[in-house]
């Protein structure tokens, strides 16, 4: 039974995602569309399973929800802060800085999400990774204390992502 399930859903989360995207694309939540989305969600991961070199990682969807809400809230707050900097702070008083973040996350997916979160929250842009993938280079728009930015990213985002990608 689990073997059949594994064969049909090599990547259960992708199946779910494709179904949701299909329903959103159709702009109507009807049972027909959900079923067709589900069919696509089964065929596409099955057909592309050859190109997923690693098995899907353990991914917990439930702690992802508070994470997304927290990131949305942070985006709002940081937006207002950066807008204030843009409008009031002269260039000479701006203190841009590089911030190096040593990573504890191992999964490429988790690191991508962390890098995306850093870029989406204004004030910081993730710029590069180290050649072996153990550090992240972040550019901060106005950071009097780069260590504080690093600690904040590590405590606020990375720690939570460690819980999501176990």
């Amino acid at each position, binding site marked *: 039974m689990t073997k059949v399930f594994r064969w049909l859903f090599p990547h259960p989360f992708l199946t779910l995602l494709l179904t949701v995207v299909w329903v959103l694309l159709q702009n109507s939540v009807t049972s027909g569309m959900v079923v067709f989305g589900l069919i696509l969600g089964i065929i596409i991961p099955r057909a592309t399973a050859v190109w997923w070199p690693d098995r899907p990682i353990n991914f917990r969807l439930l702690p992802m929800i508070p994470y997304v809400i927290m990131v949305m809230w942070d985006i*709002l707050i940081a937006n207002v802060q950066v807008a204030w900097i*843009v409008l009031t702070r002269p260039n000479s008083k701006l203190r841009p800085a590089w911030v190096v973040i040593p990573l504890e996350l191992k999964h490429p997916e988790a690191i991508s999400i962390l890098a995306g979160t850093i870029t989406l929250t204004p004030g910081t842009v993730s710029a590069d990774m180290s050649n072996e993938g153990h550090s992240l280079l972040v550019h901060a728009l106005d950071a009097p204390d780069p260590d504080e930015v690093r600690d904040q990213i590590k405590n606020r985002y990375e720690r939570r992502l460690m819980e999501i990608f176990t």
Partner: protein
Amino acid sequence: MMFETLATYVIALCLLVGAIFSLVGSIGLLKFKDSMTRLHAPTKVGTVGVGSLLAASMLYSYVFGGGWSIHELLIMAFLFVTAPISANFIAKVVIHKKTCDTPPPPAKDETWSTLDVPEEDRDVSVANEIEAS
């Protein structure tokens, strides 16, 4: 009637917030002086600016257009997924061309992946000349 009036105000507020953030993003793009700090300005337009414009669109189609419109969620999702990638590529180009401050060495590995190129490719002035010709 009351509900529709209220909705109109909320939609107007959303449009206004979106427009203001887009404006601030553009001002930032003009004001900042090097490419790395400039990169910070469009992230505002991409998140709260476009986000609140799309929220206005969703609200409008719910109240006046008859029925929910959920396309906007998809636009927002794709925007949130693709915006960091383009920002990352611009940052990589800036680092490669060395038009910004040299980043500090990474904490755990030897170098940054953009700088990790063969010795003969490290001279960016050659690449700049090829581009100019």
